[in-house]
C-alpha cells in the first residue's frame, strides 16, 4: 500500500503534465483530488464529449443561493487531468477537501454571531467596542478566504465584498516568494514557472516540491488559521479512509502547500477531535461553463493565473521554442493590418532566446517573448501589446457543459431556450440584430426581455441604426456568474416565463412609486407576459388615482405613450394602456395650473423638462380631445399672472408652436410679459421660457425681435447687469449659427432695418394684361396656334 502526494500549482500546465506522466507510470487504483466532496458525483462527467473546459463546479446553498462558490478547471489544470485519467482507466476518483457543508456552516455561524453582536451594539449604544470584535470575526473569515493558494473563488457575496475594504488585513507574503528570493528571482510566480511549469524533465519533481514546501512550512511562522487546519485534517481523514478500503496505490493531488501536512500524518484521534461537531449547511452542485477571463487575475480570483491563453499554449505545445508563439503573434498582427514579415518573427525569436540566455533561463518565458515582441515587432510602441494580451495571453473563451448534467430546473429551461433559439453562450460579446417581423427573431427578443426582467443581464439592448420600430439590437456576453443569478431566481418558477411573471408581480406589489411600476410595464410588454401586464396596469391605475403628485404623473406619461403607440408592433393589446393614459392626462390637466404657481426657479426648470416630454407625448398620441384639453391647460398657465414666469413663457411658446396663439394675441402676451412694470428678472426669465431651445423665432418674426430689442435697450445699466446672466443662459443654449445670425442682426441695429415688400398701388392693369400672353407662351402653357388666332 502506498500513498503518493503530488503537490501542484492549480492551473499549472507543467504541473498538469507532471501529474499525467506520474499517474501513467504509477497506475494508481484511486486518485484523491483537492475539491469539495459534495461534487463527487459530478466527476463521472469528466471525459464526456460535451464537457469541455474551461468549466467549473458550482456549489451553492439551496436555501440561500447567494452563498455559492466555484471551482474552475482548465484543460491544463492538474486536477482536470487527474479526473480524465481516472475516467479513462476506470478507477475511483474522489474529492477530498473540507466539505462545503461545513465551510458554509462555519461561515453562517460566524455571520450569525456578527449579526447578534451588531444588534447588541445598537442596544448598548457602544459601537466602538463591538466593532473591534466584529472586525476580528471578519478578519478570521478573510484569513480563511485568502488561505495560501486555495482554489475556492467566492461568488459575489455582498457582505464579504464590503469586508475586504474595511478590514486592514496584514498582507502576508506569498510563501513561495521566499524560495524565489533565495534563488535570486524577484518574483515568486516567475521562479515557480521556470522551475516547474516550463520544465521538460519530470524526474522526482514532486519530491522536490514536497521538500521545498516542507522547508517553508518549518521556517515560516504559520498564522494560526483554523480553517486551514480543518481542511488538512479532512484531507488526511480521506486518505486514511482510502487506506482502510484497501486501495493499493493512492495518488493524492493537492496544492503544493498542503503536501507536507498530508505526508506526515498525526494521530488519527487528533484529526477526529478537530473535525468533531462542525456545523452543517445544505449544499448542491453542478457543472457550469467557465471563461478564461474569469480565470485570470484581473477578475480577482484568488488562485488565478495571469495568462490562461499562454498556459494553454505551453500545455498544447510543450516543446515550442517560442517560434510557434511568435508565429501566432505575427498572424494576429497581420489580421490587424500590421506588416509583419517572417524575418520579423525570426528576429523576435532570436531576441527572446538571447534574453533567456542572458537571464540564464533554459527557455524564454512569457516576459522574454513579450519584450522581444515589443522591441522587434512593435518598434517599442506598447499600444499593440494590449491586443496580444487580450487575444493571445488571455485568449478569452468559454467552456461547454452537456445539458444532461443535472441542473436546477430554471437553468435547464434557459439552456433549452438558448439551444432552440440558437443563442449560444459566448465569452466575448456578440451582436445580434433582431427583425421582430420574423418568428424566430421575435422569440429571441421575447426570451431576452424575459431574462432582463429576471435581472439576468446577459444581453444589453443597444441603439438601433436606421429607421423602423421592428428592429432590435442586442449585445450578448455570457458571464459565469449568471449561473448564480439563475439559481437564485429559480425560486420564482421553473421556466423563464413563469419565473419572470411571478418575480415582476411580486416586485410591483412591493414598490410604491408610479415611475418604477411604469418602467416595469415598459419592459414587461416586449417580454409578452400578458398576465403581468394586466397586473401592472391595474397597479398603475391604483397608484395614479391615489397619487397627488402631478409631477410623478407627468414623468410616466412619455413612456406610457411609447407603449401605447409602439406596443402594437408586437401584437400586444394597447387598449388597456390607452385607457389609463387618458385618465392620467385628464388628472394632469386639472392639477397642472396650480402646480405651476409659486415655485422656485430650480423647480420651474425641472418642470420645464416635464412640459417638454409631455408635449411630445401628446403630439405623438394624436388624440383630438386630449390635445384640446392640453392646449386649454397651457392657455390657463400662460394667462395666469401667478404662474412661474419661465413656465408661463414656455406655455406661450408651446401654444405658438401649436399655431394656437399667433399674430396680435401673441404680440400682446409678449409685450405684457416684457413690459417695463415687470421686474427685469421676471421678464428675463419669461423670455428664457419662451425662447427655450431655439432662437429662430426671433430671427424670423420682426415684431417679436423689435420687442426684445427695445426691452433690452431701455434697461438701466445696473439692471442690465442683473439680468445679464439670465439672458446669457437663454442665448447660450442656441446653436452657433443662430447666435451668429442674432449677433449680425443686433449689429444692423433696431427693428426698422427689416426689408418690407411695399405695394405702391399705382399699377396700370391694362398694360400689364398685354404682356400676359407672351409670358404664357414662354412658359409653354398656351398653344402658339391659338395665340396666333387671337392676334
Amino acid at each position, binding site marked *: 500500500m502506498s500513498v503518493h502526494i503530488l503537490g501542484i500549482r492549480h492551473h499549472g500546465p507543467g504541473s498538469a503534465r507532471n501529474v499525467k506522466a506520474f499517474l501513467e507510470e504509477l497506475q494508481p487504483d484511486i486518485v484523491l483530488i483537492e475539491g469539495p466532496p459534495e461534487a463527487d458525483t459530478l466527476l463521472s462527467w469528466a471525459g464526456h464529449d460535451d464537457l469541455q473546459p474551461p468549466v467549473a463546479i458550482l456549489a451553492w446553498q439551496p436555501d440561500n443561493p447567494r452563498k455559492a462558490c466555484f471551482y474552475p478547471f482548465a484543460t491544463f489544470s492538474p486536477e482536470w487531468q487527474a479526473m480524465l485519467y481516472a475516467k479513462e482507466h476506470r478507477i475511483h476518483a474522489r474529492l477530498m477537501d473540507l466539505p462545503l457543508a461545513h465551510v458554509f456552516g462555519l461561515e453562517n455561524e460566524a455571520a450569525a454571531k456578527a449579526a447578534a453582536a451588531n444588534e447588541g451594539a445598537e442596544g448598548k449604544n457602544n459601537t466602538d467596542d463591538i466593532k473591534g470584535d466584529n472586525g476580528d470575526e471578519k478578519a478570521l473569515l478573510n484569513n480563511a478566504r485568502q488561505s495560501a493558494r486555495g482554489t475556492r473563488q467566492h461568488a459575489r457575496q455582498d457582505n464579504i465584498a464590503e469586508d475586504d475594504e474595511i478590514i486592514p488585513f496584514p498582507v502576508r507574503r506569498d510563501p513561495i516568494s521566499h524560495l524565489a528570493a533565495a534563488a535570486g528571482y524577484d518574483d515568486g510566480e516567475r521562479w515557480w514557472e521556470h522551475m516547474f511549469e516550463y520544465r521538460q524533465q519530470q524526474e522526482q519533481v514532486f519530491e522536490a516540491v514536497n521538500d521545498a514546501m516542507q522547508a517553508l512550512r518549518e521556517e515560516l511562522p504559520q498564522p494560526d488559521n483554523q480553517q486551514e487546519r480543518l481542511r488538512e485534517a479532512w484531507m488526511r481523514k480521506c486518505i486514511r479512509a482510502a487506506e482502510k478500503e484497501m486501495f493499493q496505490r493512492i495518488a493524492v493531488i493537492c496544492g503544493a502547500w498542503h503536501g507536507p501536512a498530508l505526508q506526515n500524518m498525526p494521530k488519527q484521534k487528533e484529526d477526529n477531535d478537530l473535525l468533531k461537531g462542525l456545523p452543517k449547511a445544505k449544499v448542491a452542485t453542478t457543472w457550469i461553463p467557465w471563461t478564461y477571463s474569469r480565470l485570470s487575475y484581473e477578475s480577482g480570483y484568488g488562485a488565478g493565473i495571469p495568462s490562461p491563453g499562454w498556459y494553454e499554449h505551453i500545455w498544447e505545445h510543450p516543446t515550442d521554442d517560442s517560434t510557434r508563439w511568435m508565429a501566432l503573434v505575427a498572424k494576429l498582427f497581420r489580421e490587424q493590418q500590421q*506588416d509583419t*514579415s517572417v*524575418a*520579423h518573427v525570426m*528576429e523576435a525569436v*532570436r*531576441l527572446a532566446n*538571447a*534574453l533567456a*540566455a*542572458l*537571464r*540564464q533561463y533554459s527557455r524564454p518565458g512569457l*516576459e522574454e517573448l513579450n*519584450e*522581444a515582441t515589443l*522591441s*522587434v515587432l*512593435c*518598434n*517599442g*510602441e506598447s499600444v499593440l501589446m494590449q491586443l496580444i494580451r487580450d487575444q493571445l495571453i488571455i485568449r478569452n473563451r468559454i467552456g461547454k457543459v452537456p445539458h444532461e448534467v443535472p441542473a436546477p430546473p430554471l437553468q435547464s429551461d434557459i439552456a433549452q431556450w438558448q439551444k432552440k433559439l440558437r443563442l449560444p453562450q459566448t465569452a466575448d460579446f456578440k451582436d445580434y440584430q433582431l427583425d421582430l417581423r420574423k418568428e424566430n427573431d421575435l422569440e429571441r427578443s421575447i426570451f431576452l426581455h424575459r431574462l432582463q426582467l429576471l435581472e439576468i443581464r446577459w444581453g444589453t439592448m443597444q441603439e438601433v441604426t436606421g429607421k423602423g420600430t421592428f428592429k432590435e439590437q442586442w449585445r450578448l456576453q455570457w458571464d459565469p456568474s449568471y449561473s448564480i443569478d439563475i439559481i437564485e431566481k429559480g425560486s420564482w418558477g421553473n421556466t423563464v416565463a413563469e419565473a419572470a411573471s411571478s418575480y415582476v408581480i411580486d416586485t410591483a406589489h412591493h414598490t410604491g412609486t408610479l415611475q418604477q411600476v411604469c418602467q416595469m410595464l415598459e419592459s414587461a410588454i416586449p417580454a409578452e407576459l400578458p398576465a403581468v401586464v394586466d397586473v401592472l396596469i391595474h397597479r398603475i391605475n391604483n397608484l395614479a388615482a391615489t397619487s397627488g403628485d402631478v409631477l410623478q404623473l407627468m414623468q410616466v406619461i412619455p413612456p406610457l405613450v411609447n407603449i401605447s403607440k409602439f406596443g402594437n408592433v408586437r401584437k400586444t393589446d394597447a387598449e388597456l394602456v390607452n385607457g389609463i393614459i387618458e385618465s392620467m392626462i385628464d388628472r394632469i390637466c386639472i392639477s397642472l395650473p396650480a402646480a405651476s404657481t409659486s415655485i422656485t426657479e430650480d423647480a420651474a426648470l425641472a418642470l420645464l423638462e416635464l412640459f417638454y416630454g409631455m408635449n411630445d407625448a401628446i403630439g405623438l398620441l394624436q388624440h383630438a380631445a386630449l390635445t384640446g384639453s392640453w392646449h386649454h391647460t397651457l392657455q390657463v398657465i400662460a394667462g395666469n399672472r401667478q404662474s412661474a414666469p419661465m413656465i408661463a413663457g414656455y406655455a406661450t411658446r408651446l401654444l405658438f408652436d401649436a399655431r394656437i396663439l399667433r399674430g396680435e394675441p401673441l404680440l400682446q402676451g409678449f409685450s405684457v410679459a416684457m413690459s417695463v412694470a415687470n421686474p427685469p428678472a421676471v421678464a428675463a426669465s419669461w423670455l428664457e421660457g419662451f425662447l427655450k431651445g431655439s432662437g429662430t423665432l426671433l430671427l424670423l418674426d420682426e415684431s417679436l425681435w423689435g420687442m426684445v430689442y427695445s426691452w433690452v435697450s431701455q434697461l438701466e445699466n445696473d439692471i442690465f447687469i442683473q439680468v445679464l446672466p439670465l439672458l446669457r443662459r437663454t442665448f447660450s443654449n442656441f446653436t452657433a449659427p443662430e447666435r451668429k445670425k442674432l449677433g449680425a442682426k443686433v449689429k444692423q441695429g433696431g427693428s426698422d432695418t427689416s426689408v418690407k415688400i411695399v405695394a405702391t398701388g399705382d399699377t396700370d392693369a391694362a398694360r400689364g394684361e398685354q404682356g400676359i400672353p407672351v409670358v404664357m407662351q414662354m412658359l409653354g402653357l398656351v398653344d402658339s396656334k391659338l395665340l396666333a388666332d387671337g392676334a
Partner: protein
Amino acid sequence: MSDILRYHAEQLFAEELEELRKQDTGKRPHNWLLTPQSVVTYLVGGKLKNGFDVTPKYIGSKRLMEIAVATLATDRALLLYGLPGTAKSWVSEHLAAAISGDSTMIIQGTAGTSEESIRYGWNYARLLAEGPSRNALVETPVMRAMQDGKIARIEELTRIGADVQDSLITILSEKTLPIPELNTEVQANKGFNVIATANNRDKGVNELSSALKRRFNTVILPVPDSMEEEIDIVRRRVESFEKTMDLPAEKPALEEIRRIVTIFRELRNGVTLDGKTKLKSPGSTLSTAEAISVVNNGLALAAYFGDGTLNAADLAAGVIGAVVKDPVQDKLVWQEYLETVVKTREDWKDVYRACRDLA
C-alpha cells in the same frame, strides 16, 4: 590632473571594466570584452564576487538594459528612442565602452550628414596624385568599426536625411560595405554592430524607412518613474561632474536637488506632486539631463561667485533658463507656477524670492 575636459566612459571607468573582465567566467560573444551578463552589471551596477562595487550608470529598469544587450548579442542593431535627456547617448556610450572597450566610433547625425560621413570619403589631394587607391580613402567610424569588429554609434539618426539613412541598410543586413571605385569591399568582423539614438520630439522629421526600421530593435527609454529615482540620477551625475571639473564647492545639498527635481517633474507632468493642482506645461522638455545641468550650473555659481554652498539663488537662474525657452508663452507658465505653487510652499520662500528677483 590632465587637461582633458571630459574623459570617455572606458577611460573614466577603466577600473570597473577591468575588474568585471577579471571575474568574468562565462562565454563571451566574439570580439566582446565582457559577457552579456557583465555588460548588464556594468550598466545597472552591482557587487562583484570579490566585493568590488560597480557603480550604476543607468538608473532605471534592468529589463530594458537586458533587452538592449541581448539585441546587440544577436546581429540586430539597437535603436534607443526617447525624449531628449533620457540618457540615450549616455547608455549608448557605456554600452560601446563595455562591449568593445571603445566608445569613440561615433557619427553625429545632422541634417547635413552626408553619405561620405557614413560610408567613406576621399582624400582629394591623394586621389589626384595617386588615382583611386585604398590610401586615398578616408575611413569613417562605421568603416573602422566594421574592420575592428566593434560597436559604431550614430547619434540622432532621425536628423539625418532619409536617402543618407538608407545607406545603412546594406551595412546592417549584408554586414559589408562595398567600395565600387576600387572594386572591393569591407566586410564586417564579428562583434560589429550599430547603436543609434533617436529623439521622440523629432518624430516625423526623417522617419526611418520601413526597410531600415526592420534592421533595428527599438528600446524606448522612459523618463524616470519616481521622484526618488530622478533625484538619485541627478545626484550621481552631479557628483561625477564635480570630479571632472574639480569644483571647490561643497557637495550639493540633497534638499536643493530635491527642489529642482520637484519643479521639473511638476512642470513636465502638468500637475503638482500631490496631484491636487493642475498646471500648465511649458514647451521645454525639462528632462533629467537638464536638471543635472542646472545643478552643475548652480554649483559653479556657488563656487566662484557665492559662499561655496549651493543655495536657492544659485539655482534660480538655471531653472528659469531651463524652463523658459519661449520668451512669451513659457514665461507666463513660469510666472503662474511661481505665484500659485512656489509661493504657497512654506519652506520654499527662498526659492520664490530668488526667482522673483530674477524675473
